[in-house]
């Protein structure tokens, strides 16, 4: 990490350089409480995020998983004012970063947070970069927004960052335009941009979804490395449970704009306490299992346009489909084990995954945070 530009950061006093960050557990970096985000649409109001609460400890990697439309992306984007208003609107809730309230904060304050304390990696690197500005300058811009440095210094920092994220010939690459980069290289540039100011929190919004399968593993590796080097806590949004198993320590499962279940990756993968999570696990393809055994979740994702008084998953749920309480009453997110919460009226009736899935997932989950070996695994398997 460079000393030329990185010294002026004002926030994040308790940032730790070690990735483990065990001491941060009692004092969370990010506290989201009862967040509600609505989108006004032609068809009506969409309750995209409907009372989501969670915390992220310093240095922690929290995986957020869910289907399209589950509200996972909207949640992460609304934390720092990255949704378009209108049509979007945060109607309720609180977001605290290092104890500072961000909902309703002045635009000036939010601008300091964005790119400074929080770096974002977007889904599609093909469109997320400005096509007519050289990559180095775009990365340098991220530095210059937050620090008073010259253009040349910013460029130098951009080259260092490109090197850090494994872009070969960074001096040459910095002077190229995005269209001269491949998809994987562009996503590296995006990551470089996100970590330019040593953020305390990294948001990765489906960073590998738009990439070739072969590139995905490399980019995940880069993100993990960047996360470890900067010590930034990470909110990793994906619909890919496999990625979660590799990268995250904790996972939050979202559905219909709500949190369904949250807990440690190991807990959730081995002992899910919510039928939706169980459904997700059952629908995973596995090497050791016949494709025919894949069990899709019946039904379709919830209609977020209507506010359901009960559990959003109820119409598709094998446990609650015929139960009045599931239809009428919204289950609270209740603790079902140490650090393990489930929003289900009947967590104990959750169908449990078969052993072979468990083994594989558990191996992946255990291997992920400590070793870099999982990435090679991933390559082989895909």
């Amino acid at each position, binding site marked *: 990490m460079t000393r030329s530009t990185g010294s002026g950061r004002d926030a994040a006093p308790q940032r730790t350089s070690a990735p483990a960050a065990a001491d941060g557990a009692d004092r969370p970096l990010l506290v989201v409480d009862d967040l509600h985000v609505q989108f006004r*649409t032609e068809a009506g109001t969409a309750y995209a995020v409907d009372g989501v609460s969670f915390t992220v400890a310093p240095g922690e990697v929290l995986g957020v998983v869910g289907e*399209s439309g589950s509200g996972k*992306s909207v949640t992460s984007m609304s934390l720092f004012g990255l949704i378009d208003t*209108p049509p979007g609107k945060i109607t309720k809730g609180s977001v605290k970063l290092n104890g500072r309230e961000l909902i309703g904060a002045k635009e000036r304050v939010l601008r300091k947070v964005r790119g400074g304390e929080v770096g974002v990696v977007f889904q599609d690197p093909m469109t997320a970069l400005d096509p007519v500005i050289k990559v180095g300058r775009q990365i340098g811009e991220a530095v210059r927004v937050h620090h008073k440095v010259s253009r040349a210094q910013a460029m130098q920092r951009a080259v260092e960052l490109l090197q850090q994220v494994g872009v070969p010939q960074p001096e040459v690459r910095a002077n190229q335009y995005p269209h001269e980069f491949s998809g994987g290289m562009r996503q590296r540039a995006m990551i470089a941009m996100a970590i330019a100011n040593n953020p305390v929190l990294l948001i990765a919004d489906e960073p590998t979804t738009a990439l070739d399968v072969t590139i995905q593993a490399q980019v995940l590796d880069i993100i993990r490395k960047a996360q470890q080097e900067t010590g930034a806590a990470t909110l990793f949004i994906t619909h890919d449970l496999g990625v979660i198993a590799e990268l995250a320590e904790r996972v939050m499962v979202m559905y219909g704009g709500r949190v369904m279940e949250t807990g440690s990756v190991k807990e959730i993968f081995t002992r899910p306490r919510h039928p939706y999570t169980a459904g997700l696990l059952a629908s995973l393809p596995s090497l050791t299992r016949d494709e025919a055994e894949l069990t899709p*979740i019946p039904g379709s*994702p919830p209609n977020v346009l209507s506010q359901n008084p009960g559990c959003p998953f109820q119409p598709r749920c094998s446990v609650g489909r015929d139960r009045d309480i599931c239809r009428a009453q919204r289950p609270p997110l209740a603790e079902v084990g140490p650090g393990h919460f489930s929003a289900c009226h009947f967590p104990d009736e959750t169908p449990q995954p078969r052993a072979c899935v468990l083994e594989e997932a558990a191996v992946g989950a255990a291997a992920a945070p400590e070793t870099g070996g999982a990435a090679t695994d991933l390559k082989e398997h895909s």
Partner: protein
Amino acid sequence: MTLPVDTTLPAAEPGPTADGGSNALEGLSVKRRSPAGLAWRRFLRNRLAAVALVVMAILVLGVIFLPMFMNLDPYTVDPLNIRAKPSAEHLLGTDNVGRDVFARLVYGGRVSLGVGISAAVVTTVLGSIIGALAGTFGGWVDSVLMRMADVFMSFPSIVAMIIVIGIFGGNVIVLIGLLALFNWISTARVVRAVILSLREREYVQASRAFGAKPGWLITRHLLPAALSQVVVILTLEVAGLTLSEAALSFLGFGIQPPTASWGNMLQAAQQYTVISSMPWLWLPPGLCIAITVLSINFIGDGLRDALDPRQR
């Protein structure tokens, strides 16, 4: 161990993100507009188009039927009563040679609107034919026609028409022909684009696979699909060509007196004294042109929104 949840779940993406392409909204099949803003927009848009339609109806009915109910004489010269102010006898006064301005306004409206509409029809037909040829045959036919379109597109049609009419003289037919010759490009481009996109659609390819003839394809599949867009362009061309006719006539190269047109009525206003002290000579025809063109433009925009909401 790449485990994409979405692909195995039966109901993954409910639809593309509308309008904004915001990833944050991924999966929600919604438009990014507030209902209030949308309603306001539609209201205003429709109201403008509706008002414009009413105005145009009044104008058209007026120029068609007024002569039947009023004794309007646009041609009789009255040397003793030139440049008279508006009065009960001459609602809008008289012109340089004592002709009744109101009568000329009504008859001029027939000519201006008539030329505008017929020129727009000829233009659209010509453009549709060229566009259909370019789109259907492709290859060198397409390149030649589209290269021609590029040149015509950026050639100042008024200048070209002044030159041609200046050298060879002109009449109404020549005028309409020239207007069409220099304005077919936008129609041709739209029709071509529609055809190119349709050629790739399954049902057209299926028809082709079943051995349908090109003529049948054009009339049964391609032109109907292009129709709504062509109607919009036709409407907008009426506005543009009415404006062109007015400009040409104003400069003395369009409709020739004694036949009245709104454009040539404005010719009088090339004299300073007429501008300064006889506004009844130029204000009514000028307003008529502006109101007509404005109304037709609003109608065209309204039509576009109504026929193809995805545009804009």
